[in-house]
């Protein structure tokens, strides 16, 4: 089992690093899909099949597709010019290291032994179970999230209709104050 984990972890981290390094945004998106997929498998292992499938459909399926669309639409695969903030690279990496070490230490040293993760009980994380929790205990947040999604849809539509927006902006521009 631990071997499966290490393989998946290696793929996930590799994809993440590749996404970071590659200069082409399309490649980045593709590496990200791979990363998401590996993590989805980990979710399965951890007894969260519903979430794993959501991950595949929502993230890998729609979000990344959206990304790809936009990248291609804008033609923004590559950016011209070099890195203007060269010094920031080193600081960022150093900080990243600090963060990682700190968190790692916190997990390994300070949290004590977190124990092993055995195979999940049967039925844990099944869509039925998740659904039951979701629509009983969390019914209000679900509504709110639904509303947020609606707002996002409306917002995205409004934002894309740019001509009309600029027209209305003209309409609302206040006249200069007197004197």
């Amino acid at each position, binding site marked *: *089992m*631990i071997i499966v*984990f290490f393989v998946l*972890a290696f793929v996930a*981290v590799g994809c*993440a*690093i590749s*996404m*970071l390094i590659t200069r082409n*945004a399309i490649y*980045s*998106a593709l590496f*990200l899909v791979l*990363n998401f997929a590996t*993590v989805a498998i*980990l*979710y399965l292992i*951890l*007894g*969260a099949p*519903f*979430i794993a499938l959501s*991950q595949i459909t929502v*993230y890998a399926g*729609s*979000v990344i597709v*959206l*990304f790809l669309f*936009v990248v291609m639409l*804008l033609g*923004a695969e590559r*950016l011209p010019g070099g890195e203007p*903030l060269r010094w920031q690279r080193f600081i*960022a*990496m150093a*900080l*990243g290291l600090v*963060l990682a070490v700190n*968190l*790692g230490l916190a*997990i390994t040293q300070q*949290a004590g032994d*977190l*124990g*092993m*993760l055995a195979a999940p*009980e049967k039925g*844990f*994380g099944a869509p039925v179970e*998740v659904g039951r*929790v979701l629509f009983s*205990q969390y019914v209000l947040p679900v509504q709110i*999230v639904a509303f*947020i*999604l609606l707002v*996002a849809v409306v*917002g*995205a539509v409004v*934002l894309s209709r*740019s001509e009309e927006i600029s027209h209305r902006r003209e309409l609302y521009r206040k006249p200069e104050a007197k004197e």
Partner: protein
Amino acid sequence: MVPASYYLILSVVLFVLGALGVLLRRNALVVFMSLEMMFNASNLAFITFARMYNALSAQVVVFFVMTVAAAEVAIGLALMVEIFRSKRSVDIDQMNTLKG
């Protein structure tokens, strides 16, 4: 049988890599992707905890995070398109109108 801390450490590594992506990349779209990866890393931690404590609530939270992230991507990308229309670039360093 994998120690729980391994998952968490993987989550940390992914998170830090995402953060580095935000810090290092100039392409606003890639920055965005890095953000998604950070979400993903934290989701992983949540799922791990759900497993550890047999708590379905953590899975529900992940579900919410994913939903909101989707919404955020929709808006964010729309904004990006709008910005690209005026700036003709997705270079995040050029979006500095709010310079003090």
